[in-house]
């Protein structure tokens, strides 16, 4: 078999083998069960609690959880804004890089606090080392926020009636110290031994073999890259992210970095199975997500390996596939695989330029972000999927004439209303913002000429991709878009802000309200949610509610480009 395809199979097999035991471990952490690592981590957690003045045994209801989350996130936003707009005089700036303009600082602060990592700057020239450190801190704590709030929802799904759902800070600290820190540390070590820099010196200048000067950026990159992959953050240290050979030096690091993208999102499904003692439900969810992922990744790999039909017409050989924007050490299969990995989860790091991929690969990448729950971001991917489950329970219940119930709790009008608002928010923001932008552009194509690097249908795809990425808290881009302007910084900043916090508030509210309802044991009248029939229903709901809403926009962008290129 082709070695590029074998490489992709290896990457998926590795992540699955690691994610199942990790899921069990995460489940134990959220259940406060003993693990053999307690000896190390209990004292560290104790330091966190003591210095922060937190009593981890005080339980909160769902409203208190959300309040704690929103307050701490607001505080992070303010600090990020301050640091980013004052980098030039703050310490650790050996390359003398400038501070950010207010609109770029706003965009970047929202982007990192919301776990999006959309980057309208380039790391080498737009960031001091101090700025990079602050962003790295945000990569830890924004990921931990998502995982901690997901733990609250797991807790709420248990078979009992309560409004006490654990302590938010405690979930947060345990996520940081017991999950993110140790795994990121191992990853960073593997990276430095493969040639990723970890130094505090500034740029180096060398003389090439042909006698020219070449500048090379280094910096404390390895520590940063490990957590940006692990926490579905995705914000690269260098401008072109993991396509840069410092950030991702060889095939081994490429395997490591792709494994890190999927590791926690898949582990969270099995963690849920462990916490609730519902293995069958976890397998149903895993299967639905995997079917969704495979249906996007297989055609993408096919199209990238097949090459660009327009290049074919120039009469050269495309044995390696579509190589514009890709690196030879990864090849087209591993690049397409990464593209779908990073867009299905809300990671957004890249190892090849998505803008230069064939039209349909671009479309599948967008679909990954539009659905945003085929594995999804750390913690929040499960919350998005939870919304689809609630909708499927409701629709299924109506279809067979049974009371809609999920895990022994009656789903009523209020919950369904919230679920529907959250499900529709995502298409509304993406399509609304794309429509507004297209309207502005078509009215004044000369004024806004700097926005688009590529003409025609592909240009429209650049708009659509950018807002899908912002709304899905993804962070990747069709980077041909000239996006460091006040218009783009403010619009995408607002979209990221709204689409981070409402889709957290919604599911937590639903789960919290369900948790306080009376528990009804399963009977013959119950619609079973851990069966393959229900799995198919969830796929149908995702297809109708999420994917179909975007179909008209996709026909204007990538589909039209595909048909034009193939002479149809």
């Amino acid at each position: 078999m082709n070695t590029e395809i074998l490489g992709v199979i290896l990457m998926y097999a590795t992540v699955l083998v690691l994610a199942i035991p990790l899921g069990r471990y995460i489940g134990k952490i959220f259940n406060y069960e003993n693990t053999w690592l307690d000896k190390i981590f209990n004292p560290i957690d104790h330091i966190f609690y003591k210095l922060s003045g937190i009593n981890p045994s005080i339980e909160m209801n769902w409203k208190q959880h959300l309040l704690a989350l929103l307050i701490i996130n607001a505080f992070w936003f303010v600090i990020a804004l301050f640091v980013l707009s004052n980098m030039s005089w703050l310490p650790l700036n050996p390359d003398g890089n400038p501070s950010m303009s207010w609109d770029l600082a706003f965009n970047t602060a929202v982007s990192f606090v919301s776990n999006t990592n959309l980057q309208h700057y380039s790391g080498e020239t737009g960031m001091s080392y101090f700025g990079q450190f602050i962003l790295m801190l945000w990569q830890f704590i924004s990921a931990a926020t998502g995982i901690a709030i997901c733990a609250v929802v797991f807790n709420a799904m248990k078979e009992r009636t309560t409004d006490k759902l654990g302590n938010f800070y405690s979930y947060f600290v345990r996520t940081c110290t017991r999950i993110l820190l140790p795994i990121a540390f191992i990853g960073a070590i593997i990276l430095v031994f493969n040639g990723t820099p970890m130094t505090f010196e500034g740029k180096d200048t060398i003389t090439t073999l042909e006698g020219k000067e070449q500048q090379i950026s280094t910096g404390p990159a390895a520590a940063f890259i490990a957590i940006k992959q692990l926490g579905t953050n995705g914000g690269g240290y260098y401008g072109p992210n993991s396509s840069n050979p410092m950030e991702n030096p060889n095939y081994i690091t490429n395997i490591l970095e792709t494994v890190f993208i999927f590791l926690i999102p898949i582990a969270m499904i099995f963690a849920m199975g462990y916490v609730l003692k519902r293995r069958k439900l976890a397998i149903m969810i895993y299967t639905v997500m995997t079917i969704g992922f495979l249906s996007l990744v297989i055609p993408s790999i096919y199209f990238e390996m097949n090459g660009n039909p327009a290049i074919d017409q120039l009469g050269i050989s495309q044995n390696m596939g579509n190589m514009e924007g890709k690196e030879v050490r990864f090849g087209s299969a591993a690049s397409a695989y990464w593209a779908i990995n990073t867009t299905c989860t809300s990671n957004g790091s890249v190892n090849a330029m998505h803008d230069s991929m064939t039209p349909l690969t671009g479309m599948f990448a967008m679909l990954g972000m539009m659905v945003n729950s085929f594995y999804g971001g750390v913690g929040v991917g499960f919350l998005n999927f939870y919304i689809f489950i609630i909708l499927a329970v409701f629709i299924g219940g109506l279809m067979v004439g049974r009371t809609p119930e999920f895990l022994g709790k009656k789903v009523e009008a209020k919950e369904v209303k919230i679920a529907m608002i959250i499900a529709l928010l995502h298409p509304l923001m993406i399509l609304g913002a794309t429509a507004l932008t297209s309207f502005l552009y078509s009215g004044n194509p000369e004024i806004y000429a700097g926005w688009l690097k590529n003409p025609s249908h592909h240009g429209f795809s650049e708009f659509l991709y950018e807002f899908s990425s912002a709304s899905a808290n993804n962070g990747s881009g069709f980077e041909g878009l000239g996006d460091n302007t006040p218009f783009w910084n403010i619009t995408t900043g607002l979209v990221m802000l709204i689409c981070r916090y409402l889709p957290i508030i919604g599911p937590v509210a639903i789960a919290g309200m369900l948790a306080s309802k009376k528990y009804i044991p399963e009977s013959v009248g119950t619609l079973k949610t851990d069966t393959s029939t229900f799995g198919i229903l969830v796929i149908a709901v995702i297809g109708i509610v999420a994917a179909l809403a975007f179909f008209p926009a996709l026909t204007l962008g990538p589909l039209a480009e595909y048909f034009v290129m193939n002479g149809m």
Partner: protein
Amino acid sequence: MPAIRLTLVCLVFFCGIYTMAVWSIAQLAPGQGNGIIVSDSGNTQYINIGQSFISDKYFWPRPSAVEYNGAGSGGSNYGPSNPQHLEEVQARIDTFLIHNPGVQKSEIPSDLVTASGSGIDPHISVQAAKIQVKRIARIRNISENDLAHMIEKYTEKPLLGLFGTERINVLKLNLELDSE
């Protein structure tokens, strides 16, 4: 406020302790955390960072959208159907054919005429090296056979022979050419 204090503790742990721990261990890694470096008669070379080669006596690397700027890396971000992109690729094909008489257009692999994502891709495909052999043999007065052996020696196989692509690091190959 627990929020403020918790943030400060996180700052100490993640920016301070975690970073310093990784940095300390990096001192044991090849290159002491500066990337992988080789010394070429007193000159430092970063083996993972591609360099620009335009003269006929060296193997050519891939085209770069940023002219091999290692402090401002990036791709072209051209869409696949962009006419300007296709014109540039056509121009690269024409230039290559002028400098390499005897090579058929259908032998040129796409990686040699398309820009990489980083703009500092150090590798080319084996085919891309092979079709440059005639030119280099003529200019440097080396037998084509020797060059073929050199290419074979520098071909990086897929991981364990099973996973990924076959490729050649252009900088390593050109360093070897210069040392002949």
